């Protein structure tokens, strides 16, 4: 048999195929980043805490979630759809109503004198509340705060909160704090 060199395999498309695989894995792995709602826990309450912090009734908006995931806003049965507007009305108090929170004048760099709301949203949940409902409530409250921050940023700096500089954001964060207080968990309903 005559000596014949074997023809080389055309492997140039191999690189294309593996590039395709590579980009696929790169994309799927980067999509999988974790996201979430961030919160800051308060430091533990001292044991001998007998003095009650005196907060005026008009400065508190109580949101309660029971073990059947039903909501109570300030003693009235409410729906989660209304929570965001209720929270915004409460924290913003645009018409300076008597029954909505007081405001305190604070000097904030970049914003000047700003009337910071003294309002606190008190969130109380039962041990039997589902985590899903709790997150939905936290989400609505966060949405209320975020929308207010965005509005303030737009009126003062002419850009959205997400596009504002770090200093501007800090100023806005001071003007509109995340005023959500979570009650010490209570054991209601007997079974743990």
């Amino acid at each position: 048999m005559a000596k014949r060199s074997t023809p080389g395999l055309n492997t140039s498309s191999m690189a294309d195929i593996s590039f395709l695989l590579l980009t696929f894995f790169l994309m799927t792995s980067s999509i999988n980043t974790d996201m979430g709602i961030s919160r800051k826990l308060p430091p533990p309450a001292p044991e001998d805490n007998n003095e009650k912090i005196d907060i005026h009734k008009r400065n508190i908006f109580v949101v309660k979630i029971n073990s059947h995931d039903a909501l109570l806003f300030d003693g009235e049965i409410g729906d989660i759809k209304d929570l965001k507007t209720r929270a915004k009305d409460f924290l913003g108090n645009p018409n300076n109503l008597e029954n909505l929170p007081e405001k305190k004048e604070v000097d904030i760099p970049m914003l000047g004198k700003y009337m910071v709301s003294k309002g606190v949203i008190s969130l109380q949940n039962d041990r039997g509340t589902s985590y899903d409902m709790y997150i939905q409530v936290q989400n609505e409250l966060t949405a209320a705060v975020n929308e207010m921050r965005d509005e303030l940023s737009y009126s003062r700096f002419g850009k959205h909160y997400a596009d504002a500089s770090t200093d501007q954001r800090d100023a806005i964060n001071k003007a509109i704090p995340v005023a959500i207080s979570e009650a010490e968990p209570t054991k209601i309903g007997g079974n743990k």
Partner: protein
Amino acid sequence: MARFKKKNDKGTPGLNMGSMSDIIFMLLFFFMVITTMRESSLIVKIQVPQATEVQKLEKKSLVSYINVGVPLEPEKYGTEPRIQLNDAIAEVSDIANFVESERAAHVEADRPFLSTAIKADKNVKMGTVSDIKQELRKNGAFKLIYTTSRRAK
């Protein structure tokens, strides 16, 4: 010049692409391995709740995870929601050690920025989550993230 005259005019020789695929495959395997290694395997079933106002976790190396959900092996760990720390089922009382070891694993400059992510199934009751939160408060881990997935507004 005659010295530089081409010997034959059969076009440019093709580049040898044989090693290209090897290099790309190496990259591919690298990414495949990395992506599977990053997630510690879950032994509890977790379907996180959905939310619209989500933030991305900034520095992943500074976040420690507490997983809560129904165990995947009910015959071993029961059917009630349990807490998973690292790769094992744990109790609420183990969180103190967990927080301490996470702190020890980071350099001192990073410690104030450590945060804890609670990755809980949406059907978990708040009782378990409250217990975890109380335990974290006691141990000074105040930065908390509730892991959720993004939902369209």
